[in-house]
């Protein structure tokens, strides 16, 4: 009995200590106050060490930009490597513990900005000169509640269809423009180029199936973010049986049942699909322009070979429309850390990256500039195709604005694996959206 009586007291102490530890550790509850505007007054401090959480996939041009800033400012940038493979989850995990860098490289999509509660945890950069140069991009990248919290200097991630030119020539086909074209081309390719996968999917990486199953199809529906707006204001639901989202998933499912995908579609990875389209083992791959680096790498840096083998076009439901999203590589936020000196220095970095250091970065990176007033460098042929598709009226990828779409990778993979119907996937995504939307309103 003595031992038994001792237990409730011990349990109470344990719970009290545990909950005290819990409240101390919950980074979300101790976040800095919202609405803090970036300070650009006076000279930027020197001799400050700034911590930058960055994606290990950063290009050499971005790494050189950090060095150039150090040289110009007298400040030091301490890079904290976040592995590209687990970039979102690692950042979220560190963020949840209350840890904050002085500069954060992170996705520009509104849904991703919301997932870090940008309005409550980041400095408002709206008054910085780069915002005007970014134009419309500043209203969709790192933007929450009409304010801009991120500077986007990395190349936009433009989605469409990569196709192998030799395979298409052999089959006597023109590049597709619509989903009907994809289905028709698939039939021809199966007949005329046996052994070549008409469309190469990569369910093993989980995220690639999102592009063909929805992003590309919905590009034309999301002109001026029309479809996003209808979802966000509740006029439409993702699960509407006659809505565009279910139509996109259904079109994708038809391609699957028609046997248009590779036999290892559920296990193949992103790297496999890019290599397949370069080598002519696949006729088409739905991917984004971030993959061009991998193609060049597969060709041992021989960009001429890549340009001769692979082309790119925008493809949507009924017309040739590409879709784009801000890339996490080269998109920077300034978290509110409470250290005014470091915050001022971090803003100074943003001013440099979007000002004095920007032209050299674009020249070295050889990408399409996101800020006006900078000349586009000479682009490799494939990137010129991408630019052409973008200039022909690309729309914002529809998931960029809708919270909760982090689950779409696994859900679209279930469709690919024939585990769920299009309607079931749509119903689940509606539930995930509602979960995230409710959390964002909290």
């Amino acid at each position: 009995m003595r031992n038994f009586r001792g237990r409730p007291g011990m349990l109470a102490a344990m719970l009290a200590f545990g909950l005290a530890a819990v409240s101390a550790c919950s980074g979300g509850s101790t976040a800095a106050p919202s609405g803090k505007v970036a300070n650009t007054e006076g000279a930027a401090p020197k001799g400050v060490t700034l911590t930058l959480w960055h994606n290990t996939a950063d290009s050499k041009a971005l790494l050189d930009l950090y060095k150039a800033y150090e040289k110009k400012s007298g400040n030091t940038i301490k890079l904290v490597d976040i592995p590209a493979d687990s970039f979102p989850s690692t950042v979220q995990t560190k963020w949840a513990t209350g840890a904050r860098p002085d500069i954060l490289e992170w996705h520009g999509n509104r849904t991703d900005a919301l997932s870090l509660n940008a309005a409550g945890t980041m400095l408002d950069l709206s008054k910085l000169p780069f915002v005007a140069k970014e134009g419309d991009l500043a209203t969709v990248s790192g933007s929450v509640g009409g304010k801009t919290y991120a500077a986007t200097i990395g190349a936009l991630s433009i989605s469409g269809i990569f196709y192998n030119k030799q395979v298409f020539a052999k089959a006597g086909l023109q590049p597709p423009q619509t989903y009907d074209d994809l289905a028709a081309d698939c039939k021809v390719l199966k007949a005329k180029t046996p052994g070549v996968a008409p469309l190469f999917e990569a369910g093993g990486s989980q995220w690639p199936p999102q592009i063909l199953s929805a992003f590309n199809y919905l590009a034309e529906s999301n002109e001026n973010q029309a479809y996003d707006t209808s979802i966000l204001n509740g006029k439409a639901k993702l699960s509407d049986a006659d809505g565009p989202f279910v139509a996109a998933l259904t079109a994708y499912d038809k391609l699957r049942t028609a046997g248009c995908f590779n036999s290892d579609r559920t296990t193949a990875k992103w790297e496999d699909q890019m290599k397949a389209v370069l080598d002519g083992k696949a006729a088409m791959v739905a991917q984004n322009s971030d993959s061009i680096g991998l193609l060049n790498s597969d060709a041992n840096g021989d960009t001429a070979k890549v340009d001769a083998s692979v082309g790119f076009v925008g493809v949507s439901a009924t017309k040739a429309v590409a879709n784009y999203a801000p890339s996490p590589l080269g998109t920077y936020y300034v978290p509110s850390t409470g250290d005014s000196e470091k915050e001022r220095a971090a803003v100074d970095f943003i001013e440099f990256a979007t000002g004095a250091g920007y032209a050299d970065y674009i020249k070295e990176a050889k990408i399409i500039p996101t800020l006006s007033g900078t000349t586009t460098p000479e682009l490799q042929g494939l990137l010129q195709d991408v630019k052409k598709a973008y200039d022909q009226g690309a729309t914002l990828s529809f998931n960029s604005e809708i919270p909760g779409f982090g689950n779409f990778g696994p859900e679209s993979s279930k469709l690919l694996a024939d585990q769920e119907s299009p309607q079931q996937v749509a119903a689940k995504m509606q539930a995930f959206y509602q979960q995230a939307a409710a959390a964002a309103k909290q």
Partner: protein
Amino acid sequence: MTTNKATIAVRPLEKRRPAGRSLMYPRRRAYQYAFALPAICLVFVFFVLPFVANAFFAFVRWTGYSSTLTWTGLDNFRLLDQVGLLRHAITVTAIYAVTAMVVQNGVGLALATALQRTGRVNSVFRSVFFVPVLISPLAAGYIWAAVLDDHGPANAFLSAVLPGDFHYAWLGHDTSALLTVASIDAWKLSGLVTLVYIAGLNRIPEQVLQAATLDGAGAWRRFWSIKLPLLAPAVTFNVTVSLVGAFSALDVVFSTTAGGPGDATTLLNVAVYTQYGQSFFGTASALSFVVTLMVILTAVPMMSWLRRREVPM
């Protein structure tokens, strides 16, 4: 008489003890607590505290989207059930754990029986079968994923010994992916289980086996009627550890299928990782709480049942 003398000799000592206490007891107890203290601290910091925190957050809406934490009761579990994640992950985890446990113990027991006697050859093989235990689970997963690729060495071997081309996607179909990944997990830890079974087998008195042999019992009869019952403590340990370990599996699954194809190998811990990576810390905590409950509700009754089977030697 000797007994009586001993009794008489002890009595005066007992009389000198304070009522209800042993002479040595207080010092021994302090000594024991001193040794137990580091373990108690570690358990408190690394198990009790996280468990309490996890249990709390399982009933809280906690996301990266907001700075506010709200008590929402069972809402996290309701949402997970609504999107089909909870029941599916529990089912997949249970199948995975049972498969891994059965394969691990079946293979381990067979190897232990074959390698029981200590000799030069057996020592080499014991080391060989123990090597997978030392390999990083992620590395093991990546290696097996390459071996089991549609065009990988496993299918190439089967194509060589079987008629026709053999290109089966072991990790590309729902059932085969789940069973294959569970078997990889079992392969990785079979060496450890084998060592425990070998220790258990060597603990069985040789005289009992010799007596059974003299009575005419064959090898099978000796195994089923003597060795297996007397191995009960080893079985208790191995079955419990392998089952509980498999409930918490993540790394091998991550490096082979990442939860796919679709969600065929999305165990509870994979789902935890996915939810956490999307800033849904409350639902991730709820799933993690379910893992803990599964472990407790399975391990405690099972250990109790297995211990009752143990035969004193």
